[in-house]
């Protein structure tokens, strides 16, 4: 984990307090430090009210710090003139697939962000074509969005952000409204983008399986970072997770159970294929010795 290159997103001492019209101010973030490096995949997990979504909205200047700072690619989100550049660099995908598509035709929706950037029409056209190709929706370009599946709608939203050529994609529970096929569709798309385009990903999620796919897991609780590390490190902290009312993914629990039952497994197994390979290896070793 070398820190030679400056982080793409740097959050330092971030406080955010919601000031409702009536009643007490609500502190949502209380001193968060976070770095997201270029091309890195960070999962943000935590219970309801932990401040995940508030933090996410700070990453592209939808919310501004009450105290502390958020620096995106060298731009301070509090700088009024930098807001549009920040929003171009950090794209956001929201939870409800229906509530983030603006236009009545897929390709028009994908063009929306580029039109806001004020690009020339020919440039927008070529970026829209490219973005639709990358998410694999060229064939549906003339469709109205309401006829698409949830996973397809989220891919349209991803294409719309992608056409703006961002450095980082923030997925704010973008898969929580989708069926398993849709979830896979969206996760495969963003992981491929990270691999092929070098996009950094911030996954805000309730799904521990998704968090297990990240390079780093950051657990928020009560507006501060409670745990942080590789998925293997974080999910090994069983007691700490339980105190935060979170659970390691079922595969991690299964691996732990198998290890307790005497199967010789390496530590840090996170996904079903990893566990299957390890179990197969253990089985072969067992037969070889017998």
């Amino acid at each position, binding site marked *: 984990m070398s820190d030679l290159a400056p982080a793409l997103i740097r959050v330092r001492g971030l406080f955010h307090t919601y000031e409702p019209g009536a009643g007490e101010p609500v502190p949502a973030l209380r001193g968060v430090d976070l770095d997201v490096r270029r091309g890195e995949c960070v999962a943000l997990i935590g219970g309801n009210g932990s401040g995940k979504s508030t933090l996410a909205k700070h990453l592209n200047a*939808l919310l501004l710090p009450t105290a502390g700072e958020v620096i995106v690619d060298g731009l301070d989100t509090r700088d009024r003139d930098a807001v549009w550049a920040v929003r171009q660099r950090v794209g956001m995908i929201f939870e*409800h697939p229906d509530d983030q598509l603006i236009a009545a035709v897929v390709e*028009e929706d994908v063009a929306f962000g580029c039109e*806001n950037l004020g690009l020339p029409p020919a440039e927008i056209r070529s970026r829209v074509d490219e973005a639709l190709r990358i998410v694999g929706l060229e064939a549906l370009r003339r469709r109205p969005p*309401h006829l698409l599946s949830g996973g397809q709608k989220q891919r349209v*939203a991803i294409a719309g952000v992608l056409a703006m050529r961002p450095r980082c994609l923030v997925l704010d529970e973008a898969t929580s409204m989708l069926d398993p096929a849709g979830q896979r569709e969206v996760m495969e798309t963003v992981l491929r983008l990270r691999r092929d385009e070098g996009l950094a990903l911030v996954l805000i999620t309730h799904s521990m399986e998704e968090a297990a796919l990240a390079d780093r897991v950051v657990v928020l609780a009560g507006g501060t970072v409670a745990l942080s590390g590789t998925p293997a490190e974080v999910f090994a902290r069983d007691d700490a997770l339980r105190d935060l009312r979170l659970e390691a993914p079922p595969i991690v629990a299964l691996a732990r159970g198998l290890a307790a039952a005497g199967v010789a497994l390496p530590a840090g197994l996170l996904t079903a294929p990893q566990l299957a390979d390890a179990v197969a290896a253990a089985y072969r070793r067992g037969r070889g010795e017998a």
Partner: protein
Amino acid sequence: MNFLRGLMLGQYVPAESPVHRLDPRTKLLGTMWLVGVVFGTRSLAGLAVLTAFLAGVLAAGRIGPAYALRGLRPVFWLVGIAVVFQVVFGDSGGHVLFRRGPLVVTRENLAAGVFYGYRLILLVAATTVMTFTTSSVELTDGLERLLRPFRRVGVPAHELALMMTIALRFIPTLFEETETIMKAQMARGAEFTRGSLAARARALIPLLVPLFVGAFRRADALALAMEARGYRGGEHRTRMKELRVAIRDYVAAGALLLVAAVVLVPPSLWRAVVGR
């Protein structure tokens, strides 16, 4: 609830035709022009010319006559009422065709009723041809460009177009939501289709309240999503699709002018101008 889907914006007939390819501005202005010409028509011959012209446009737009007539069906009863009113309450006097008690039908009133009724049909037909051949997205684009010059006098062209776009985008979504809420209420014993008119109106309240709450929640989420994608109003904004006026638009404009000239200019004047 499928009738809701059939009803909404099901007018556009996607096809490749010269009429479909016309600039939406041409079609919008052309339709307004035609509506004016229909209103100005005073003669049966004029109606015949306009009918032939609209039939020609329909054919060029690859719209089947049966389909076009079906699109006009909702206006037929309206036309029926208009004709009846004209016949029953029209001017007294003239050649009496039929008399029973206070009901008097004269030849003049019947002719006028049919004339005005047919004119009404043509009026609707002219606008229907446009909606058959122009998608809602194109219409919105066309309207925005047409209104753009009026921005200086305070017409919010971009905002109006954006409102239309969002409305078009969300009408089907809100219909789906209506369906879901109705089913949820029906599962709990609500009745939407029986009872007196007052009872049915009351039954709509538990439908409308969640629908409105949901719409406001969506509006909020959409505003956030638009902001996240760098939306900051119409300034600095460009569009992916540029509208371009092509030769066919000039041809259409020429045809429209010709129709107006034939229909509106009285024959005596024609003779004087063309001479002998």
